[in-house]
């Protein structure tokens, strides 16, 4: 079994599904010859031809709107948006159409498609290249929102996403793209969409995270361990639908929760998790749930990027806070 990074893992997943199913098709800006600016679609055009890995005009709404048309007529498009910062031009198609075709036609038409995009900060990028907007997507009925944090999950989840009968937004933590390598099976496998994963068991506090924040949380938790705090770490892996049971079970055990996300705090996904904890496990709580998140400002440029992003230190501080309450 080869060690692969997340870019290679997603690439392998795409490759395998394209081999198995001639309906699977890649479209987006620079996804063809270039293989994507992060090389996630590298080699697909060379292998499957110009008609199955297609460079499009520079127009995000066009890309996903045309993908809808492909999806209702027998194809399984995997559309790439170059950065999540360029998702907003496509939001109308996603929110007003892609998510609603099944409902609007009472099941006569369906829209099985995947919209992939790198998201999140930490790579010293220009404006609009560091955004996290998963909570906006999680608020939209009719789409699923998947976020892998490891190469293994990334491959299994992209394969599952392609096979899913409904539209999936697939958010790739670009900071993780080449940062970790792990064993990724050559076989074709899936990771179920909507199942969180307990990455580390612990009885003192539950740390809920996803995407690039998983590594930061794990680091923080290691530091906490040195202070004698035994944290449980849960990687959501999908933020819509959310696997409530996994984290609620943990919360009932630990009674203390820290949620970590890069997105701005207000109306971020952390709020929804707190709301669900409140609804289903309030009496278990022994401290207010702590949110360690991005701030309610524009994501800053390089000089202040590290100030904005939740760091292991900031997460540790959150852990200490809920422990001390």
């Amino acid at each position, binding site marked *: 079994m080869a060690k692969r990074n997340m870019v290679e893992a997603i690439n392998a997943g795409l490759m395998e599904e394209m081999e198995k199913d001639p309906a699977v*098709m890649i479209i987006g800006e620079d996804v063809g010859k270039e293989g994507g600016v992060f090389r996630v679609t590298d080699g697909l055009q060379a292998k499957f031809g110009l*008609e199955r890995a*297609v460079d*499009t*005009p520079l*127009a995000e*709404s*066009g890309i996903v*709107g*045309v*993908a*809808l*048309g*492909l*999806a*209702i*007529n*027998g*194809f399984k*498009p995997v559309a790439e948006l170059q950065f999540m910062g360029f998702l907003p*031009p496509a939001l*109308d*198609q996603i929110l*007003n*159409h892609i998510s609603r*075709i*099944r*409902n*609007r*036609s*009472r*099941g*006569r*038409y*369906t829209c099985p498609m995947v919209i992939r995009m790198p998201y999140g900060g930490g790579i010293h990028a220009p404006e609009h290249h560091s955004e996290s907007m998963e909570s906006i997507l999680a608020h939209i*009925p*009719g789409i*699923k929102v998947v976020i892998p944090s490891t190469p293994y999950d990334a491959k299994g989840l992209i394969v599952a996403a392609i096979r899913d*009968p*409904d539209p999936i937004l697939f958010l790739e933590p670009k900071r993780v793209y080449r940062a970790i390598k792990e064993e990724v099976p050559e076989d074709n496998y899936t990771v179920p969409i*909507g199942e969180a994963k307990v990455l580390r068991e612990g009885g003192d506090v539950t740390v809920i995270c996803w995407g690039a924040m998983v590594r930061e949380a794990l680091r923080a938790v290691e530091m906490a361990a040195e202070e004698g705090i035994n944290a449980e770490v849960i990687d959501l892996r999908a933020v819509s*639908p*959310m696997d*409530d*049971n996994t984290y609620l079970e943990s919360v009932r055990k630990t009674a203390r929760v820290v949620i970590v996300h890069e997105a701005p705090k207000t109306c971020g996904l952390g709020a929804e998790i707190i709301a669900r904890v409140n609804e289903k496990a309030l009496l278990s709580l022994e401290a207010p749930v702590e949110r360690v998140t991005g701030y309610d400002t524009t994501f800053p440029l390089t000089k202040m990027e590290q100030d904005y992003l939740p760091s292991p230190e900031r997460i540790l501080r959150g852990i200490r806070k809920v422990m001390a309450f």
Partner: protein
Amino acid sequence: MIETFDPLKGEMLMILHPDGRCEEKLKPDLTDETVQTLYRRMVFIRLADQRALALQRQGRLGTYAPVHGQEAAQVGSAYALGEKDWVFPSFREMGVCTMRGVPLKDIYLYWMGNEMGQKVPENVHVFPISIPVGSHPLHAVGAAWAAKLRGEKICMVTYFGDGGTSEGDFHEAMNFAGVFQTPTLFFCQNNQYAISVPRKIQTAAKTLAQKAIAYGFHGVQVDGNDLFAVYAATKEAREKALSGGGPTMIEAVTFRFGPHTTADDPTKYRTDAEVDEWKPRDPLLRTQRYLKKKGLWSEEIEKEIKEEAEAEITQAVEDAEGFPPPKPGEFFQYTFAELTPNLKEQMDDFLAFLKEKGN
């Protein structure tokens, strides 16, 4: 033919003149019998439209966007399509939709506020109505691309208005269609208004048809109240698409005689005189005159056509009103292929609430 009428020169295709006279050289291959049938459909649409307005006034149907005045544009274009072609309508295409096999009952049902009205029969290739203006041509381009990739000889037609050409998505759709040479037909019903906004505020371009130039394919202006011109242009554009010639844009110049929707009061923004000016160009009148010249129209025939139509319409109303109401919680069922745990929980809670209320 399309390529010979240059919108930049202000040329517009007209075959059947308002007085019923016909440019024989340009006349499409429609038998008089077919013209009779199409005329019947136009009358049917006009009456079904009127019925919708009446039902709305009686509170039996919700907001409705009438076709009145655009019957030739809709019937002529829809008739030119092949059985397997798909249609991507906006909200004003009752004419197109019924022509393409959507039961009138379903259309009424939809405007009565039941989503089931958009579950068209399996053999009907009409995509659900798109309310967001200008956004659905992209879907037609994608679906047409899919057909092309599979080598199917079909074409996808998208209908939109003059207002629709201003949206960014219209641009992206036209551009993708040009780049991927998809068999897409962009059928614009320029009915002179987007609600209250007149055509000239929509764009400084003299014609809408010339917008196709921006995307490297042909656009043509046709008299949208001329059944023959609409049919001929659509047919040609379709054949071009099927033979790999890529997309075409047709601007059908027409007029909305009625209000924008039942919620609209057109006297706020246009004069009676303006409406009157268009009356002689009424698409039904024109076809009637043509048929009359051929001895195929008379007051009696008209009466019979109308009676037949009214009967069909009444049946549709009855069927729509007799359609069973949605089952409690139906609206949860079509969000995903399967209910997610969260939705299941919400639905159960909703059903429990109904139960508590005693429903």
